[in-house]
């Protein structure tokens, strides 16, 4: 069902792929780092709460 893109199909598809690829990369990185930091912070706070709880 792809529309035929005439002579320039390669360029158009390429540009779409590249751009969406870049966007995907950016989003992936964002979410990944977000998750990592959140996890690290949570366990850190858990540890602190335990310590202050003990002391």
């Amino acid at each position: 069902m792809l529309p035929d893109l005439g002579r320039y199909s390669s360029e158009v598809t390429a540009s779409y792929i590249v751009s969406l690829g870049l966007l995907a990369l950016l989003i992936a990185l964002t979410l990944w780092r977000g998750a990592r930091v959140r996890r690290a912070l949570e366990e850190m706070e858990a540890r602190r709460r335990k310590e202050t709880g003990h002391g």
Partner: protein
Amino acid sequence: MQTSARLLPWTVGLAAAGLVVGLVWGFFFTPDDFRQGSTVKIIYLHVPAAMMAINAWVMMLVTSLVWLIRRHHVSALAARAAAPIGLTFTLIALATGAFWGQPMWGTWWAWDPRLTSFLILCLFYLGYIALWEAVDDPDTAADLTGVLCLVGSVFAILSRYAVHFWNQGLHQGASLSVAPGERMSIVYRMPLYVTMAGFVLLFVALVLIRTRTEIRARRLKALEARERMG
């Protein structure tokens, strides 16, 4: 934090919607331009990306100012969060532009003023990000990058004029504005508007997420430091 939390889902949803609709519409359901053939479809990526690339820098400029004047930490972090997004958009504009240039101008790259000034903008993004990465005390980094952003903006504008002075280009002007010359027909413009909206929302969404991350990261850093101090 709370406000952003409430805002987030909406922006994400809308961004997704806008992008999908606009791009699908643009990619599948628009006729080919009689001159440019199917390449006109590139515009749905190219223009919004280019637009947002510029606006992202403006946004960084504003937030940096807010930080430098009001010492509002979150805004500094927002600036930091925005930079990579702006960079990505710049790259997209460049890439799509390049792919567009191949059929239209017969070359991947021409030292056209607008293209050149975009390349320079790309460099500014790189420098800005590199500085953030290089300095490890958060406040110092925020201040330095803030100063850099101000000075950089001035020079970016300077460069733009310099470049125009240096070479008159073959890149089309802002045909969305009420330009006298060829205006894109409604067929092309509707999906374009939608994608633009999509890009804007995407930008907002990403900035929100990344800013939240930065804030968490910073708290994390502080707590680690305190732990080391015992």
